[in-house]
């Protein structure tokens, strides 16, 4: 029982980080209908900038720089590339971001080389004990930051002009622009937010207990794809829940590997995708995704 609780809590905290990255995916998709495969390398860029900068400017400023760099890079992808072919179909746009991802990830991993860059977080390897369960302090912080960001996001989405603009852009772009909403500005804001969320996700994915920033950190964003899909691609709430589910599932399958060994060992990486397929069988648009209703 104790093991289950430990695993479950550990999974939730890991899932909180996935939620942030997944939220970035969904924001971009809602505002511009792009599946952004470059999210992984933007995450790596954010983490890389933090790791390189923290020794000279201090941790807090380094985080600000990393978040800024990721946000700017993300906006540039939209403004320089995506905007030119905004009307292209989903597949084309997705492959375009994939091309960008290959470029950015190749250059960053070349710069990192064999290094394992320390992210320089002041909480280091501290551990927090809550009700007999010991969790890395960085994970607790990640959970807190994620909760605050998600709540802020929700409020902004519901009550600010940006939120209304974005929702109407997602609903029907042409009508929205007729109503005087500047779609390009909405798009840029959404991409900037996604970049910032990726950088923060990257910060926590590379601090303790992870080793640090390596060339392959960008691949971690792949783990959030099942989260986004099973939550529903256009649902921010779904992305958050999806992230938590994926975190818990992957930690639980790893922790109970011995009991699950009849399914083959090393399930931790596959289980999220299997869960995703099962959910899609029952709900083809994910848990909270808008169902396409066809009226004749």
């Amino acid at each position, binding site marked *: 029982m104790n093991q289950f609780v430990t695993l479950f809590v550990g999974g939730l905290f890991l899932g909180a980080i996935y939620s942030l990255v997944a939220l970035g995916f969904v924001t971009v998709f809602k505002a511009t209908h792009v*599946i952004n495969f470059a999210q992984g390398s933007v995450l790596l860029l954010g983490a890389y900038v933090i790791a390189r900068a923290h020794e000279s400017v201090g941790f807090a400023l380094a985080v600000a720089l990393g978040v800024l760099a990721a946000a700017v890079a993300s906006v540039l992808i939209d403004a320089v590339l995506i905007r030119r072919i905004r009307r292209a179909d989903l597949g084309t746009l997705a492959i375009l971001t994939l*091309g960008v991802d290959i470029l950015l990830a190749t250059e960053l991993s070349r710069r990192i080389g064999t290094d394992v860059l320390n992210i320089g977080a002041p909480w280091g390897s501290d551990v927090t004990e809550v009700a007999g369960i010991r969790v890395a302090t960085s994970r607790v912080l990640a959970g807190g930051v994620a909760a605050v960001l998600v709540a802020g996001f929700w409020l902004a989405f519901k009550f600010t002009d940006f939120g209304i603009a974005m929702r109407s852009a997602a609903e029907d772009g042409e009508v929205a622009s007729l109503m005087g909403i500047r779609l390009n500005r909405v798009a840029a804001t959404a991409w900037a937010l996604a970049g910032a969320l990726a950088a923060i996700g990257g910060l926590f994915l590379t601090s303790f207990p992870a080793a640090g920033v390596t060339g392959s950190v960008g691949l971690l964003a792949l783990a959030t794809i099942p989260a986004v899909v099973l939550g529903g691609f256009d649902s921010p709430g779904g992305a958050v829940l999806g992230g938590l589910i994926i975190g818990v599932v992957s930690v639980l399958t790893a922790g109970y590997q011995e009991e699950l060994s009849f399914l083959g060992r090393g399930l931790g990486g596959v289980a999220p995708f299997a869960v995703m397929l099962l959910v899609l069988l029952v709900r083809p648009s994910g848990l909270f995704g808008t169902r396409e209703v066809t009226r004749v």
Partner: protein
Amino acid sequence: MSRWLGAAVVVVLLAAVPIWFEAFWLQTGLFAMAAIIAAIGLSILVGIAGQLSLAHAFFVAIGAYGYAYLADRIPPLLALVAAVLLAGVAGALFSPIAGRVRGIYLGLASLGLVFLGQHIFQNATGITGGYRGVAVPPFSLFGFEFTGADGLVVLGVPYGPLEKLWYLGLVLVALSLWYGHNLVRSRPGRALATVRDSEVAAATNGIDVVRYKAAAFTVSSMYAGLGGVLMALAFGRIVPESFGLLLSIDFLVMVVIGGAGSVGGAAAGAVFVTALPLILNHYSGSLPLLAEPGSGGVGAAEFSRLLYGAAIVAVLLFARDGLAGLVHRKERVV
């Protein structure tokens, strides 16, 4: 008349390739041919039926492993056919999900198949050999072995497995292109295009949408399976790592930069994606800009990766209909 003459010259030139070219070019050519066949299948699915799939590598793997397993037990030609059918069955089994799930959800759901496949290929050691992989039995046709054992020499060139497989590849590619072209223009092909453009319109025209989608998935998987068999033969030994996410992404890139929905475009995309890194590597010694491997700086490998990324971006931005679109545009001008 001159068209037939041109075709005949092309056939003769292609048939003469093994006499002139080194093993490297044959190997690269065979990998490209395998990719062409599989990419045609994906092009039918994505471009014509409008279903995005990232699972293609999985079906390619089914074909490859299916052949490697069966060819030890039944004649290789039968094993080839059976492997293709097996891939088709796998596609049909996945089609209930494909039929229910649409567009982007399908694309990303199919990603799950690739990861599940990796897990299965690594763990079903009895059939796949696990991480060690399996040796692929050589092809043979009516007693003619596709190996170097018979010591066949043509015009002074010893004909080994690569030289012989080259012809098998040519035949399979020709058949695949021919079938693909016909399918696109046939009634089912037009029905699929209607399904892509509007499922509602298709349904009101009496097209059984679910059945057609399932059929598209099955045909596409069979193409993947055939590509897989040729890939396995070109390798001689297959390991799970060859059929991962990167291969699936490569296929999607082939189809998109070739021009989705165009059979010829998919073939061009396949050649571009498969051969570019191999050829860049080949000439890396003579490209002055590239750093020596191990000396830091941008080496040939990174350069080829960067070029690959840049090519994707450039084609999508400046040649919206892909490579096939470029050709058509030119034709229209002339």
